[in-house]
């Protein structure tokens, strides 16, 4: 049985751990607020972009003349999976759920005899995917930055476009975690290339726009930008989800540490009491023997 001193040390260590998890939780909470604000600020841009693209895509009469980014390559043999994860761990199952979704997709695609290529954004996803799919990973982009800016998304976007131009893949899917609330983050797969454009609908479907320059030039300009915008959105959602996941994970950890401290303190006090009793008995029986 551990000595009293050992137990005191153990309790102190647990208390120190609890302080750390508590601090991490508070840091995550404040970062979450900022990440959420950023995600909301980016929404109007992404929504307008989507609306305009949908309008233009609907008005392009001849799909054959549309840029390849819109129509696809006409094949779906090679898939590129862009897996966005965090740079840091200690955020519950956040990274694992994204990777699990990606892994299911990979296995399904491989089962159909397709070729799979992976582009990792974020170190954690790379660490987890490398074990089984090292030969499929084309590149890893690390995002060790304080504040996520559009230029980071543009870098990822440029990389994707470069691969597409070279004919390295036919279909691109983006994996990230959608932020629902602090406790709910939904891992999501979003097909980027060719874009899934919901047919017509809405009030905007009937507007006849004038284009300056013409539709195809605008499409050629917008489609690559749209890739970056989607990546940017995914990264922002991811950032908010990561902080949310970390916050609840650290909240749990703090609570568990509290529970452990309580149990350890009880054992410590019991042991101490038992020792005192034992010593008393020894003294009394020693006195009686005289």
């Amino acid at each position, binding site marked *: 049985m551990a000595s009293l001193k050992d137990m005191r040390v153990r309790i102190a260590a647990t208390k120190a751990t609890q302080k750390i998890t508590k601090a991490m939780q508070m840091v995550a909470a404040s970062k979450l607020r900022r990440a959420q604000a950023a995600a909301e*600020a*980016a929404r109007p841009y992404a929504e*307008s972009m989507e609306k305009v693209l949908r309008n233009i895509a609907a008005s392009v009469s001849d799909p054959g003349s549309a840029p390849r980014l819109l129509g696809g390559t006409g094949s779906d043999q090679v898939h590129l999976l862009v897996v966005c994860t965090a740079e840091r761990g200690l955020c519950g199952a956040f990274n694992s759920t994204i990777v699990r979704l990606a892994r299911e997709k990979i296995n399904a695609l491989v089962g159909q005899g397709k070729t799979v290529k992976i582009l990792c954004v974020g170190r954690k996803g790379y660490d987890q995917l490398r074990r089984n799919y090292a030969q499929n990973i084309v590149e890893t982009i690390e995002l060790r930055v304080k504040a996520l800016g*559009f230029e980071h998304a543009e870098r990822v976007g440029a990389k994707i476009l470069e691969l597409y131009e070279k004919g390295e893949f036919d279909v691109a899917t983006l994996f990230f975690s959608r932020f629902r609330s602090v406790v709910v983050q939904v891992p999501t797969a979003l097909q980027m290339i060719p874009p899934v454009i919901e047919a017509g609908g809405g009030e905007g479907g009937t507007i006849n*726009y*004038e*284009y300056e*320059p013409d539709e195809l030039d605008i499409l050629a*300009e917008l489609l690559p930008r749209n890739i970056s*915008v989607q990546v940017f959105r995914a990264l922002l959602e991811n950032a908010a989800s990561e902080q949310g996941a970390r916050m609840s994970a650290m909240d749990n950890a703090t609570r568990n540490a509290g529970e452990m401290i309580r149990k350890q303190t009880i054992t410590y006090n019991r042991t101490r009491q038992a020792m005192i009793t034992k010593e008393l008995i020894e003294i009394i029986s020693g006195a009686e023997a005289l």
Partner: protein
Amino acid sequence: MATFHFELTSPEKLVFSGEVEHVVVPGSEGEFGVLKDHAPLVALLRPGVLTVLGQNEKRFVVRGGFAEVNPKGLTVLADFAAAVEDIDREGLAGQIKNLEEDVADAQDGPAKDQAATRLEQLKAVQSALGH
């Protein structure tokens, strides 16, 4: 004068939103003014200054992106957008100088083209600011 709704957004945030009378947009084919009930239009932007005319006149530097006019109003989506007052002119001049050196030093290739395009854009912004 009749007003319409105008929004200026960059990927990072909503820069301006409100009712305006007249906006002059630097389109890739030339500047154009937008008043209420403008015909629906989608136009690419060139780097330059976007001006909101009216009682409280405002000027914004925009770079890359497009403008969309629909019956509800005007939406400008720019890669970069900021009020003219917030632009650091000395910083801009410094950037131009750096880029000029880059272009002079760079090997021919996509990197040089990119730098040259960026330089052109920044110069356009600078001249639009009246320097």
